[in-house]
């Protein structure tokens, strides 16, 4: 019998149906991948198993865990199960830990509670578990606070807490979404080891088919609270019988079509084309922390003397892990952050000097698209006013001309003219990102700096936005600086890649060369860590056929 068996699980929250007859099962020592886009009900399925649902929830169906029916279990018995037999790992490791307690206390807490162990015994056990999750188990580590750890270390601690009592089932809700790719690979490795060593079952919730293809034995795909397809992971993802599976798989490895060949620096230089943006040894510092009234620590160098060119119509990718300085560099180019040294030329105009008219005119042709489609608009203004913002630098336009520009921009991103009278909350995430692009387009820019423009979107929306960006590039000859940590996206849309680490460029070259023949260790590491659906499927099919032979 399966360890966890969910039969026809239904969930309504204040009368709104969230889950509709969801059935799934997990065997001991196996990994079930639960995949779906945002709002599909995958987190709610996990919370139903834990019985940690919000108020006003109405649960129907059957959840049986290790022979007991959880649906009728009271809160006290659930408390015994939670943390002891079922552990849970959340997406955001910072908010999942109590900032006021040392990690030792937090791991020991569950052990004391469930096992009745004394504080010193619990601390000993906590040290063992830290070792198991790959953290140094000395006293020093146990007495540290969450803010003293890196994101990856924090997630290890969260996993340690969840696995402290060797649960039979571990539920991991997007455990690596907030982490860098290299850290993600490490955490996934850790989870895999824990599953085999402890013969534990893992319910892995993810939106990333790549991660699931790498990890899961079986797979369940959810959409709008309904199970679309379930079965053996490799089988489901290779054969793609259900149209939605096909759609998801296609979207997550989507490559937009392009009419023009990629613009490469070497070719452009040979043809004598002047670069659109030329960056020469630029340095960005953050002021140091204040130590006293008159004392400051030395400034933090976020971008350390980097140089590159972007040619008209070229899509340049800037990749690196969080904190490597890629966003700071983008902001510096836009004049949002003052550069400490170096030269910036855009469209033949120097942007490094003090303000002058030429510069204002040039800056008009450089725009930005942000990552968060929710935070990048003032909720109090109508779309027309939001989109028209960059036209501030074109005061000669009449009201009618401005309105026409707004309409054109909206239409070019696939929205309707009449949308300009709406407020931002009337739009979905994907539509908001289209609006963000419309806002960037309205001043007819030559360069758009896109800072993680698709990272916050579901895969199918991501594919649409990438198509849109690519289409606009072909039609309007716009150059992009595409800041991203997602190498699949970069490979799909970019011409050249800059790999950045600790404020410096590690490697620079055409996409194909970097992806097929990386020269630097760091680039190789990044590429190896990036989840790739096709690669994993290929590997795993090869493994199974090997076993058969």
């Amino acid at each position, binding site marked *: 019998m399966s360890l966890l068996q969910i039969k026809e699980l239904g969930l309504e929250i204040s009368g709104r149906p969230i889950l509709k007859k969801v059935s799934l099962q997990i065997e001991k020592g196996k990994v079930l991948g639960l995949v779906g886009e945002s709002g599909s009900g995958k987190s709610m399925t996990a919370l139903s198993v834990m019985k940690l649902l919000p108020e006003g929830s109405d649960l129907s169906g059957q959840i049986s865990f290790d022979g007991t029916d959880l649906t009728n279990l009271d809160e006290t018995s659930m408390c015994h199960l939670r943390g002891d037999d079922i552990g849970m790992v959340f997406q955001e490791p910072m908010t999942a830990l109590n900032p006021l307690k040392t990690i030792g206390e937090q791991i020991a807490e569950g052990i004391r509670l469930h096992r009745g162990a004394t504080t010193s015994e619990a601390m000993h056990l906590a040290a063992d578990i830290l070792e198991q999750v790959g953290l140094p188990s000395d006293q020093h580590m146990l007495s540290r606070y969450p803010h003293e750890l890196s994101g990856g270390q924090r997630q290890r601690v969260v996993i340690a807490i969840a696995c402290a009592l060797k649960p039979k089932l571990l539920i991991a809700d997007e455990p690596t979404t907030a982490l860098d790719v290299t850290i993600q690979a490490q955490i996934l490795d850790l989870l895999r080891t824990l599953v085999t060593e402890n013969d534990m079952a893992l319910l892995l919730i993810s939106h990333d088919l790549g991660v699931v293809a790498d990890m899961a034995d079986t797979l369940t795909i959810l959409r709008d609270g309904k199970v679309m397809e379930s079965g053996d992971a490799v089988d489901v993802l290779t054969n793609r019988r259900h149209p939605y599976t096909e759609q998801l798989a296609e979207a997550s490895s989507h490559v937009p079509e392009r009419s023009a060949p990629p613009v490469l620096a070497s070719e452009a230089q040979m043809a004598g084309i002047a670069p659109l943006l030329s960056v020469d040894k630029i340095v960005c510092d953050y002021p140091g922390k204040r130590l006293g009234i008159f004392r400051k620590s030395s400034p933090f160098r976020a971008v350390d003397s980097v140089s590159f060119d972007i040619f008209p119509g070229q899509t340049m990718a800037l990749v690196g892990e969080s904190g490597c300085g890629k966003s700071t560099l983008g902001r510096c180019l836009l004049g*949002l952050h003052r550069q400490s040294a170096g030269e910036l030329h855009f469209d033949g105009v120097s942007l490094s000097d003090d303000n002058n008219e030429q510069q204002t005119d040039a800056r*008009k042709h450089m725009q930005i698209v*942000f990552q*968060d489609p929710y*935070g990048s608009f*003032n*909720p109090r203004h109508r779309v027309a006013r939001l989109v028209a913002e*960059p036209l501030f630098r074109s005061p000669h336009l009449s009201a009618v001309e401005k309105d026409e520009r707004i309409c054109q921009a909206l239409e070019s991103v696939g929205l309707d003219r009449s949308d300009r009278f709406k407020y931002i909350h009337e739009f979905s995430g994907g539509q908001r990102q289209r609006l963000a692009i419309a806002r960037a387009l309205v*001043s007819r820019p030559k360069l758009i700096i896109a800072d993680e423009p698709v990272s916050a979107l579901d895969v199918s929306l991501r594919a649409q936005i990438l198509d849109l960006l690519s289409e606009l590039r072909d039609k309007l000859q716009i150059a992009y600086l595409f800041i991203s940590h997602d190498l699949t996206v970069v490979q799909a849309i970019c011409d050249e890649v800059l790999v950045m680490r600790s404020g410096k460029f590690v490697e620079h070259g055409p996409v194909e060369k970097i992806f097929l023949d990386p020269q630097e260790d760091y680039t190789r590491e990044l590429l190896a860590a990036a989840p790739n659906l096709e690669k994993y499927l290929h590997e795993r099919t090869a493994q199974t056929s090997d076993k058969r032979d």
Partner: protein
Amino acid sequence: MSGPSQSAELDDWGWPAFARRALRSRSFVIGAAIALLVLAIGILSFFWTPYDVTRLVVADRLQSPSSQHWFGTDHFGRDILSMIMVGARNSIAVALVAVGIGMGIGVPLGTWAAAKRGWADDVLMRFNDLIFAFPALLSAVMITAIFGPGIFNAIIAIGIFNIPVFARLSRGAALGFWTREFILAARVAGKGKTRITIEHILPNISNLLIVQGTIQFSLGILAEAGLSYVGLGAQPPQPSWGRMLNEAQTMMSFAPHMAIFPGLAIIITVLGLNMMGDGLRDILDPRLKREN
């Protein structure tokens, strides 16, 4: 990811949403009703009071509440109800102008400091701390003692102590918005800091300012009563709640109504304004809502 949840709360705004939530908040409805009542009484006192508050009828002095004088009369034979009505408009005027001074100077200073950062911010905020470090009422006593007692100086004194409250609040709120992406987008569009503050920052922090304004308003009424009580506020024969309490003090044992009614007036008004402020905070800023 903090973005979506934050803006989801901001999304539901505008008059219909405001009215819908306002009517659901009991403390706002009660508080607003009391505040409106006090305001209406204050306005009414311009046109009509049961008796003339400046007319002394010594024969009628120290009467207990009766059908002629609902709240009784004082030691000069003046009608207490009429005095409370006129006193209401005094209190409201003082508190209103004092909050106006605080907002009018504090908000521009605070938003300017947030936009400017650096030494200007430091200097301004340390100066703020300095004013904060003084007990407000004591310093108000000092100001009115130097410049002479009177309602005008009381207003100035209370107003000055509202400045740092609004400066600090608006700076803190504005700082949070300066890192938001829609502000960055406006900066990329080439807009200056003043324009961004007016177009984007102020509308977004207005909720907080309105809530704080209501609370400062009630504190202003208390401060005015306090100053009048020690004789530094409104001067006779202008009636004022604080001075009425002061005058009643010596007669507490045989004419308690002289203290009870102005005291109740102060308590009810301040309570009403605080309830309205609390209610407004729940309505306008769901992030601050406390779990009940």
